[in-house]
């Protein structure tokens, strides 16, 4: 290699480096620090209604969807569509809830709403059986696949302990804001799957999570520089046992709950406490909650927060 070649290479690699850097920078600028948006409450919990009614009550307490979605925004709504199961089995997010969120995004002026999940079962079957594809399309959203690596782009996670980088679906990276809409379920490995665990549907390599300390990786991915603008936990039907896939309707409890917050750790803590009434689930056993608090993603101390509780 002569000097000229070396310099060329240096210049090229330098240029390549700046591209990556600037991308990370642009993501940083889009970051929301949450607290500024809602002055009223940190967390809203609603009990006793249909998913749509509960969401309408809840979002009203946050001052409406317009506080999160601005005119012309590209929005991603990320439900849990992981399994080839119909809604009664509570393995996937309630499709009516997803549709209502999409409609409210459009009403708030969103230019485009996208829905996707990196599913475990065949994505075409999951999208169809869950009822989410049909409901989302009817509400005007774009439904994207997530089954190929080419849909993903690597981001680095400097605050993470185990998962130093991850490939995240481009729809999330290219959106203005994204809304995380998990369903409340028991999980054989992670103990609970709620908002934080729902991030495993935005990444490509789930196997890495499982083989490199699952609880830590779940906490790590939540340090990404573009957190969900809002977490809406669907606890209308919850999966008590045999989660996250479930076997039969015997695993399902009609709990009629909904939890919303910008603090992902807080909302998962609240949802875990709620679940604890159905089946014993001490917070300490759900390792990723404490690990995320340690990474300053959010707080498990609900007493510090202003919480609005609504019974319908």
């Amino acid at each position, binding site marked *: 290699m002569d000097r000229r070649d070396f310099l060329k290479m240096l210049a090229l690699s330098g240029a390549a480096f700046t591209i990556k850097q600037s991308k990370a920078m642009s993501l940083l600028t889009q970051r929301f620090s949450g607290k500024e948006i809602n002055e009223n409450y940190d967390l809203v919990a609603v*009990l006793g209604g249909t998913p749509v009614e509960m969401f309408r009550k809840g979002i009203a307490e946050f001052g409406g969807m317009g506080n999160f979605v601005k005119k012309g925004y590209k929005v991603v709504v990320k439900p849990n569509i992981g399994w080839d199961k119909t809604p009664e089995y509570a393995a996937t997010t309630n499709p009516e809830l997803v549709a209502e969120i999409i409609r409210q995004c459009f009403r708030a002026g969103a230019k485009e709403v996208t829905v996707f999940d990196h599913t475990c079962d065949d994505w075409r079957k999951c999208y169809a059986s869950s009822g989410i594809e049909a409901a989302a399309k009817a509400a005007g959203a774009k439904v994207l696949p997530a089954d190929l690596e080419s849909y993903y782009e690597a981001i680095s996670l400097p605050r993470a302990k185990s998962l130093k980088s991850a490939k995240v679906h481009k729809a999330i990276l290219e959106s203005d804001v994204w809304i995380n809409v998990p369903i409340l379920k028991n999980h054989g490995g992670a103990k609970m799957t709620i908002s934080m665990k729902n991030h495993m549907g935005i990444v490509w390599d789930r*196997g890495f999570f499982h083989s490199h300390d699952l609880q830590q990786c779940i906490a790590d991915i939540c340090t990404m520089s573009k957190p969900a603008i809002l977490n809406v936990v669907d606890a209308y039907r919850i999966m008590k046992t045999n989660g996250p896939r479930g*076997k039969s309707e015997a695993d*399902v409890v009609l709990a009629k709950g909904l939890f919303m917050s910008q603090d992902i750790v807080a909302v998962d803590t609240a949802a875990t406490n709620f679940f604890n009434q159905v089946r014993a689930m001490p917070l300490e056993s759900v390792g990723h909650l404490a690990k995320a608090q340690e990474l300053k993603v959010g707080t498990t101390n609900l007493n510090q927060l202003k919480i609005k509780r609504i019974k319908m």
Partner: protein
Amino acid sequence: MLKKLRVIISLLFFIPITFYFLDFRGVLPQQFHWLAKIQLVPALLSLNLIILLVIVGITLFFGRIYCSSVCPLGIFQDIVLWVSKHFNKKKKFKFSSAKNFLRWSVLGISIITFFLGFSFLTGFFDPYSIYGRMATHLFKPVYMEGNNLLAGIFNAAGFHSLYKVQIFMLSISTFLIAMAMMLIIGYLAWKNGRLYCNTICPVGTVLGFLSKYSLFKIRFDQEQCNSCGLCSMKCKSSCIDAKNKSIDYSRCVDCFNCIEACNRNGLKFSPNFSTQRKKVENESAMNIDENKRRFMSTLAVSSLAVAALPQEGIKIKNFHRVKRETPISPPGSKSAENLMSACTSCHLCVSKCPSQIIRPSLLEYGLGGIMQPILSFEKGFCNYDCTVCTEVCPSGALMNLTKEEKHKNQMGQVHFIMEDCIVYKDGTSCGACSEHCPTQAVSMVPYKNELTIPQTDTGICVGCGACEYACPAFPNKAIYVEGLKVHQQATIKKEKTNQKINVEDFGF
């Protein structure tokens, strides 16, 4: 006129069956599998008497119509030939004698080896299955690649009705076999027309034999014909001897090109002419005698040869780097043995499997089972509620299962190796296997501290391979499915009735 009719009918069969093989998006309804079920060898193996009677009946009436309109490999050769004519406008065929010894030998060997449980050759020579393999391993990847290109353009333009699909090699050996077959048969078709059909194809041999006795035949009009030989030049089966005004009906596939070619109306497709009949029959009777003798001797020799092969000895173990000792045969196959007794490796199940987990085997089933479908959990697992493969199988090798029957069908059993498990090795949470398990034959039970570790219940396992696919342990998977020589019934545990739980409070 007849020729046009033949071309139209053949395309009406050929285009849908080809598209059915390629169609990964499910545009054609599943019911189009009837196109595969009307093929002769699958109908024979599934003992579909109605189809068999219809095919034999049509042949006894009109001759080898089947070969020119239903058989996809036959039509494929016609298309190659049609293309070749555009490159060589002066293409001429000429009469050649029948290669009867070869034909009957191939047929005999296919039958004998089949009855001895070595079904590889049956599927290897079956024309429908050859075409199925070509469609699955050669055309479908091209179709998918085309789809991906289009989807790329569409998606970039903001339309998402098309989606990209992952393309990968299902089996190198089968790909090579399919490629070689296409090149050889294609080359023969380009040069010599229907040579494969009339020298190798066992279906062609049987139907050719029957069509000697068919009612309708292409016949010379002794008065009109001046033996100019135009018909013979156009005959892609090389079966018209214009000089002697005779036709070898065992090779005529009823393409009607000769009738079209004749300027003097010297050939007719018509029932019996008593004067000619004798002559032709005498001739063929002579042929048969001679052939029969050779056929019988081949039969004897080859059956001895195959019987002499040690049945277990030809299995080669551990060729693949799989821990599995027994291969997993697809749902509805009942057992590997049953699969091999009816499967012709047409690979319709391979092509139609939405999870792309059915692949051609190499030597897992032994030499006789090469190319037959086997499950691989490398890129996916068997969807719990999916029964597509059992529905499409034309030969009865995979019995049709309802969803409920499939939920009980155990094609393998889960094996857990704790020493390789991440929970045991690293002391961290995982549960990937259990979360994918549809029956909870793998469930997570309390282990040290707050950890849970897999526990297996082989009795309720269906062998879907979801656990094996999901297991992230490296280098050895900590959980895998061991095949069963004979599929079993999984027990389905009665679920406890859902006690109604009311959640009145927030809990925080």
